[in-house]
């Protein structure tokens, strides 16, 4: 009786404060077809997979406090490593009276301006099993205090609970040869995942110029991979997570239909200090051929001064891409691109198209081709992974 009364009181107090409750999310069916057999006989061919990502959002006191929870789960029939769950976001946000906000919990933060590679984006780990393009991220536990001033925004981050990168398993595709054994990762930090990482970022828009600068100190999101022999006497790669210091800048200038972009980093802690950058332009033609469609042309140059020793295949590469937004009622769009390695001569082609079938259902079709990868160790592992991917997402 007393309990019921208390509960009732708590609930009604809560209800009085709640200004919005929102439940939404999506469920997806995905099929990937491969043109060739995997390079490694352990790799399976066509795959079918399901994923879910609900979203719960509660707003209190007209938005002063809010709470967000976004869990994620994928089941994959072919690769155990790809069947995985994650908390994409689980955070409480407090908006201060004037010029500050505080985010506590598991969050998602994106930094950067370029399209071909997100070089400066560092807060969240890549959920690589989701897609080899690296666009999907794992949730990162953090405390983020933002000071939003007239002269710019200062973001302070304290992070612990390091997330290891996900890698496709032995039977999966889009993986290194040999595969990455994530059970034996090596950490430079003595307290491993419990190490506290920090970052400070300043960002502001000066007229046409959007500028961001940051320093990050902590465990590298991008591991180096080293071959070892595991207990089953197989040669596998293990991820090595070094402690790094990375300073970075991202700039975009928006001049009419032209966008000029630059991302650059300098990192120490993984061998010698190195420098890497992505720079380029994007130009948009509006209403081409007297239709409603917009066509954007993107060109970007990717550089890494480690050259052939770089952990990524993008050390001297040119990206040329085209984005078409049809501006129709189904929001149809198409992104086609090609990355050419200027010194190693490999070529990667990719196409992605999205189309809304009805109010709830969205289809996307993706394709990738890897060509002439011989001289590029990282890409050569993907040479037989030319694929077509269909993803049907039901939004509610």
């Amino acid at each position: 009786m007393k309990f019921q009364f208390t509960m009732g009181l708590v609930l009604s107090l809560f209800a009085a404060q709640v200004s919005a409750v929102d439940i939404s999310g999506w469920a997806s069916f995905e099929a990937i077809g491969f043109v060739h057999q995997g390079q490694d006989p352990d790799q399976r061919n066509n795959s079918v997979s399901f994923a879910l990502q609900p979203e719960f959002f509660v707003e209190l006191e007209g938005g002063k406090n809010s709470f967000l929870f976004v869990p994620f789960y994928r089941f994959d029939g072919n690769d155990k490593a790809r069947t995985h769950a994650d908390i994409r976001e689980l955070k409480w946000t407090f908006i201060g009276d004037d010029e500050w906000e505080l985010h506590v919990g598991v969050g998602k933060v994106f930094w950067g301006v370029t399209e071909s590679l997100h070089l400066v984006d560092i807060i969240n780990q890549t959920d690589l099993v989701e897609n080899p393009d690296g666009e999907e991220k794992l949730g990162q536990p953090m405390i983020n205090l933002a000071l939003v001033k007239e002269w710019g925004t200062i973001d302070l981050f304290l992070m612990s609970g390091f997330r290891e990168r996900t890698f496709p398993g032995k039977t999966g595709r889009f993986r290194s040869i040999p595969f990455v054994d994530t059970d034996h990762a090596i950490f430079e930090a003595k307290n491993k995942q419990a190490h506290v990482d920090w970052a400070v970022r300043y960002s502001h828009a000066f007229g046409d110029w959007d500028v961001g600068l940051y320093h990050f100190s902590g465990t590298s999101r991008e591991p180096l991979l080293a071959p070892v022999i595991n207990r089953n006497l197989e040669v596998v790669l293990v991820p090595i997570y070094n402690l790094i210091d990375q300073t970075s800048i991202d700039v975009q200038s928006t001049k009419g239909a032209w966008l000029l972009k630059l991302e650059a980093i300098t990192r120490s802690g993984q061998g010698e200090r190195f420098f890497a950058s992505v720079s380029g332009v994007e130009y948009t033609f509006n209403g081409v051929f007297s239709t409603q469609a917009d066509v954007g042309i993107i060109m970007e140059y990717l550089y890494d001064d480690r050259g052939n020793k770089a952990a990524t295949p993008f050390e001297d590469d040119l990206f040329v891409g085209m984005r078409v937004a049809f501006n129709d009622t189904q929001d149809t769009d198409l992104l086609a691109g090609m990355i050419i390695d200027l010194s190693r001569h490999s070529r990667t082609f990719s196409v992605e198209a999205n189309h809304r079938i009805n109010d709830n259902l969205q289809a996307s079709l993706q394709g990738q081709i890897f060509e002439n990868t011989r001289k590029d160790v990282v890409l050569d592992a993907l040479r037989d992974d030319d694929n077509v991917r269909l993803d049907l997402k039901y939004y509610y």
Partner: protein
Amino acid sequence: MYKLITVTALLSVFIGNAWAETDAEKGKAIAIESDRRDTGFVDFTVQMTMELINRKGVKSDRVMRQKIIEREGGDKSIVVFDFPRNVKGTALLTHSHIDDDDQWLFLPKVGRVKRISSSNKSGSFVGSEFAYEDMSSQEVEKYTDYLLLKTEPCGDLMCNVIQRRPVDEDNSGYSKQILWVDVDEYRVQTIQFFDFKKAHLKTLTFSGYQQYAGQFWRADKLAMVNHVTGKSTNLIMKDYQFKVGLKEVEFRKKSLARVR
């Protein structure tokens, strides 16, 4: 909302002596007076539903929320999409200026805030018959060559019919616009849009005007018909709230990432 009280006072005198003006001066004076009457709203929020109707009459809806804060040198606004679900949470921040606006788009899927080019004034807003320039804040200075054409009945009201031409000829989709503005309250009743071949491209009709905060008139429905394609878009406005105490800090790039 660029203006000085003294200028307005001076113009009121001019309006009082309308006989002394040319039709060009009269046309501009009407635009200025219409703008003056809508100054001082401070801020407002509104729920919007866009009904996109194709030639066959098939409808598709967009649901969004908008909040606007009034600022010297150009208002600031945020539009957040609620429907269709796959674009839910997508938000567009606009800092308007007389020349190019500053615009940022928040993409919730990747948590990315992206500065976008605002030169695409003639482009379709989310696939509708409204162009970006139709949706943006209508400053007097964005147009030129004002001309009072005539005064004639418009429905139950009397309207001044004025013509105007976009200043930004390179990026606008229109050679000219003709507006029917009622003589009593200076509310825009109809706009006809003409393309560069001087053909009548679109007509926008405002209906269901209501007065808010004892001063500001807003239409409940904006119906845009494209005469070339046969497609149309209805923009239905609900739940206008004026002077809700929005803060400028809510209209910064950082804040965009948490607008839901």
